[in-house]
Every structure is written in structure tokens, then in C-alpha cells.
């Protein structure tokens, strides 16, 4: 049983640069809003490789949030195909998607979304609980992740005892702890002052340098500029896809 919870073969396969992590083919997404149907995505193609650092930009209503929800396996497309690590996830059930999110995706939210009454350590342990990791290993890995974001001395603090930047770092540790194939950050600096924002972007940069695949969704130019590739969305379509490496 134990082997189920350790780093699996394809976690290692995706590390080499160049392998495809995400393959999106002609996905559309429609919402019913009252009597009208809103077409948030109108046929998007996107290929993301392992160890890319990509920013998705666009004004509100451009479909970037919808695309991010797709990428994060929080939602499924109306039509089209979405392959994550070579697995078709476009028609998966809720619980199967939860499994993918738990194992393969690390989320960083604009509002941090930490559990207010839990310590940093408990917050970071949460994904491991859902993954069924045993207590000692859980603790060990959570401590490791917190150390990696420089919060080794804040493990027993609750979110209200931490600064915004520290909270976001806890959230990044939580995103990292399951060694995900994709780190998905939604406006990670949106609630932070510019200096702390820089700090957080530095951590994301580090993750990229260490071989992680990072996707940042933002409308801030200076945040996007740190990425190696910028995808701009407009009216539910990709307007431009610019490689800056």
C-alpha cells in the first residue's frame, strides 16, 4: 500500500524539460446565465511543457479565469479535449478530478485561502491528509516545504499571526507539498504590497529554476514579465502566445 503514496513513475517522467504536461485542444466553455448562454472560451488550443514558466494575461471577461479553472481541473470543458500528463481529464467525474488536483496540481490563490484556525503546519499538511499520507511522513514533508519557503520558524503560527507575504508563502508550501506536476498561481501578488509581491515572485521563480512547471494568471504586466512565456487572452480566445526566453 505504501508505494501508492510515494513519488510515482510519471512524477519523475515529467521532470525532463520538453515533455508535454498540458495539451488542450479546441476547448470551449459555455455558462447558462439566466436566459443567456455565455461563451467564456471559444475554442482554445494550448500546449504547456514540463518546466515552463508561463503567464496567462487578459482583461476581465477575456476567459482567463475560465481557462485557469480548466487548467486546474476545477472545471471541465463543454467541448474539446484536455490532456493532463497524457491523461484525458475532460470528462472526468468530480472525485476523479479531486484526485488529480490533489496529486498533480498545486494551487496558489490571490486570497491565500488558508484555514484560519489551523497552524501553518496543519495547513500545509492538508493535501497530504487527502492523499492518505501517514502522520510522521506528512509532518516531515510539510516541514520540508515550509523550510523551502523560508518559514521554518513559523510552523506553529496561525494565519492571523502571519503577514500577508508569510501567508502566501504558507500557501506556496501547501502547493508544493505534494510535489505537483503543475503549480497554478492565480493573481498571487494581488493582495500584497509591491515589495512582498516581488518576494513571492522570487519564490515562484525559484520553483521554476528548480524544475517545476509554473503557470501564473495575472493582469499585472510586471508580474507577467517575469515569466518566460506570456499567453494573452481576449474574448475567449488566445490573442497572442509570446515566447520570451
Amino acid at each position, binding site marked *: 500500500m505504501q508505494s501508492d503514496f510515494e513519488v510515482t513513475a510519471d512524477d519523475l517522467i515529467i521532470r525532463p524539460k520538453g515533455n508535454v504536461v498540458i495539451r488542450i485542444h479546441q476547448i470551449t466553455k459555455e455558462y447558462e446565465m439566466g436566459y443567456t448562454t455565455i461563451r467564456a472560451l471559444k475554442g482554445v488550443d494550448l500546449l504547456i511543457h514540463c518546466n515552463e514558466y508561463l503567464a496567462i494575461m487578459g482583461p476581465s471577461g477575456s476567459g482567463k479565469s475560465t481557462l485557469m479553472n480548466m487548467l*486546474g481541473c*476545477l472545471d471541465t470543458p463543454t467541448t474539446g479535449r484536455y490532456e493532463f500528463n497524457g491523461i484525458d481529464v475532460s470528462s*472526468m467525474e468530480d472525485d476523479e478530478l*479531486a484526485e*488529480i488536483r490533489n496529486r498533480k496540481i498545486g*494551487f496558489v490563490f490571490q486570497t491565500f*485561502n488558508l484555514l484560519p484556525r489551523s497552524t501553518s503546519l496543519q495547513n500545509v499538511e492538508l493535501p497530504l491528509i487527502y492523499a492518505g499520507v501517514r502522520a510522521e511522513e506528512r509532518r516531515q514533508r510539510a516541514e520540508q516545504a515550509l523550510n523551502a519557503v523560508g518559514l521554518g520558524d513559523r510552523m506553529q503560527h496561525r494565519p492571523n499571526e502571519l503577514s500577508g507575504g508569510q501567508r502566501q508563502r504558507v500557501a506556496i508550501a501547501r502547493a508544493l507539498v505534494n510535489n505537483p506536476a503543475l503549480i497554478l498561481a492565480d493573481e498571487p501578488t494581488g493582495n500584497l504590497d509591491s515589495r512582498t509581491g516581488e518576494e513571492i515572485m522570487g519564490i515562484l521563480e525559484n520553483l521554476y529554476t528548480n524544475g517545476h512547471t509554473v503557470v501564473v494568471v495575472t493582469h499585472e504586466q510586471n508580474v507577467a514579465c517575469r515569466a518566460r512565456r506570456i499567453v494573452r487572452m481576449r474574448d475567449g480566445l488566445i490573442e497572442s502566445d509570446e515566447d520570451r526566453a
Partner: protein
Amino acid sequence: MKDSPTRRYADTPIRFHHELGESFRIAAQQIAANRSRSILTTLGVIIGIVAVTLMGTAIRGIDIGFDRSMSGFGDDVLYVEQWPWNTGDDYWKFRNRPDFKLSFADRLNQMIEENPNSLLDLAVAAPASIQTVAYGKRQISNVYTTGTTHQYAYLARTNCEKGRFINEAESRGGRNVCVIGRDVAGALFSGEDPMDKVIRVRDQEYRVVGVFAKQGSFLGIFSWDSQVVIPLASYIKYFKSNEENASIRVKVRDKIQIAEAKEELRGDFRRIRGLLPEQEDDFAINEQKVLRSSIEPVKTGLAIAGLFITGLALFVGAIGIMNITFVSVKERTREIGTRKALGARRRTILIQFLIESVSICLIGGIVGLGLAFGLFVLIGALFPSFPMQFSPMLVVMALFISVMTGIISGFAPAWQASRLNPVEALRYE
């Protein structure tokens, strides 16, 4: 190796265990954080559990009180009489039955002796009637007066706190002696020693040879302590007119076989009565069991009242808890979204909220049990005669009811939480 992505991660009991642990931790946090809200919502459950527990103790207490007072009758004794104990109607049918003779007891004993396989042991005539007894100027009415032989001691409880039961010589000679119940002694003698005093039963004089030990009463309906026993021969001589109340008590050898013994007794008695096969029995064989059925309505009434109060309180409590859980789900929509994003499955969320509502109910249940136990001790101290019995079974039942209330009331909100769309939940303000 590369099979379905989700199946690769086995749904192990370990994982379920982790989720449970986390859920309990969260539930404890949540209840502690919303202390006053939680206490208020548990009130309904607390009242419900107090009601059901007290009802349970009262019903069990009645049973025990009944058993205690019934031990005077004996559960291995059959009563052959003209009347069945539990019949209200058909008065004339029983009224017109041929006379019931006490000498039947001797005939019966003869038959028992002749049959080596008899399941019956001994028959003793014990007619009874209500009489007035007096000593000096003091007088009490409604005293249950039984005439019987010394063998009565063999089939009923006759231990005395003073003196002794009627002996064989007194029994055979039909002497004017009596054994009186404790309350009779108390009422007639009030502190004076009743031994060897002469009392009047109706208009006959009897010398007191013994006072029964306290046997207790049953909810004040019936008391074994208010009786007088005199020798059968004397009873027949002075109170014979009362044939309707004639009674022959028959002890069976083994109470396990009481049903078979009853059949044998019925056969014997039909022979004594000389009944033809097609004729109906013109006597009744009663047993303690029949009396027991007479307290059933009391118990049923209590149970219905108790269940009604319990049901109402638990219903209100359940709605309160359902409400608080709905509020909790609403308040924590974003948290649910976050948890889902981090990989919580529907089941995880469902269980988390169920555990929360069950925990609240369990706390209510435990508090309720504590209160009920306190009340139980208090009632026991204030009214020692009121029969009540607290049992472990009741504790288990109360906790079970609490858990069920939690599950039932928490299910709808927990289900709603588990079905939340993660995208919408994360966006919820």
C-alpha cells in the same frame, strides 16, 4: 503500469482514517469557535435525551417495582379460581359457574401424589376477602385477609420480622391466630409490641403470632404489607360465605414448564369438576403473568408521553442543528472550495460536516445524560419509594439516539456542501 490515473491511488482504509482524524479535529475547532451557538443548538437534543432517559428509568423502575411486589405471588404458582383475573365483561358467565370448593385442594394433592410424573408440586387453598380489623379503639378497613394452611409458607413469601408464620398444629386445629402485615401492625399498634395481642378480624378474635417482614407496595396501588393471614379452617368457619373469592394456589415443580403444568392442572381440575369433553372449563387458572399485563397500560402511557416529548424535543433540536450546519456550510463556502481544490472529495466534505453535526448532538446527548442522571439521583433522594432504575442500556440508547439525530439533521447540509462546485465555492464572497 499506466492504468487509469485515479485508480492508481488505492482508496485505502488508511486514507479514510486520516480524513476522519482531520474531520474530528476540524469539528472540535468549529464547536469551540462557536461555543454559544453550539450550546444553544444542543438544547433541544439535551431536553430530548433527558426526556427519553427519564422515561426509560421510570418504565424500568415500574417493571422492577412490579417484580418486587409480585414476588408475593410467586412466579411458580398457579391460581385456580372461579374468575379469571383479566376479564371485564362476561360477568354472568363467571357468576353462574358452580360453586368452587376449597376441598378441591385436597383432591388435587391426592392426584398429584398418584401421578409420579406430575409437574405440579403442592396445592394449598387460600381464599381471601377484604375485612376490617381492629385492636382496641383503632380500626382499619380494606385489609386483605387470607385463610390458609401452614403449607402456604411453601409457596409464598412468609418471612416474619417478629414471631413466625402459622404452624401445623394451629393450621390443623383452626385456632384463632393470625399473622399480620407490617402496615397493619403499624396502624393498629403504633409502637406497641403486637405479639400475642388479640385483634378482631370482622367480629372474630385472633391472637397475633407474627408480623410479616416488609414486602413493599407497588406505586401505592397494592400493598402486601396490609394483609392478615389466618388458618384456613378458621377462615371457612367464619368467612365462608365468600365463595367467589375462593382460591387454590398450586406450586409447580419447575417454572420453566409452567405452561405444561398449567395443562396438567386443567386436566386434573376438569376431572374434579366431572366435566364432559365438550363442556367448557368452569374455572379459571390464573398466573402472575396476567397481573403483569394490567400494568402494561401504565407503561404504555408513560412510553407514549415520553416518546412524544422526546420526539418533539429531538425534532426541534434536529432542525436547530440542521440550521446551524447550513449556516456553517454557507459561512465556510470558500473553505470548502479550498479543500476541494486541494483534493478533498465529496465524501471527505460530507463526512466532515456530518461529524460536526454528530459531535454537537453527542455533546448534547452526554450533557443530557448527565442531567438525567442528576435528576434520577435527586428523585431517588426525595421519593425513595418511587421506583426508578438507571441502566447502561439506557446510556447506550441515548448516545445512539444522539448520533442518529446528528446524522439525520446534518445530512442535508453536508450533502449540499459535498456537492458544491469548487469554482463557485472559491469565488464565493
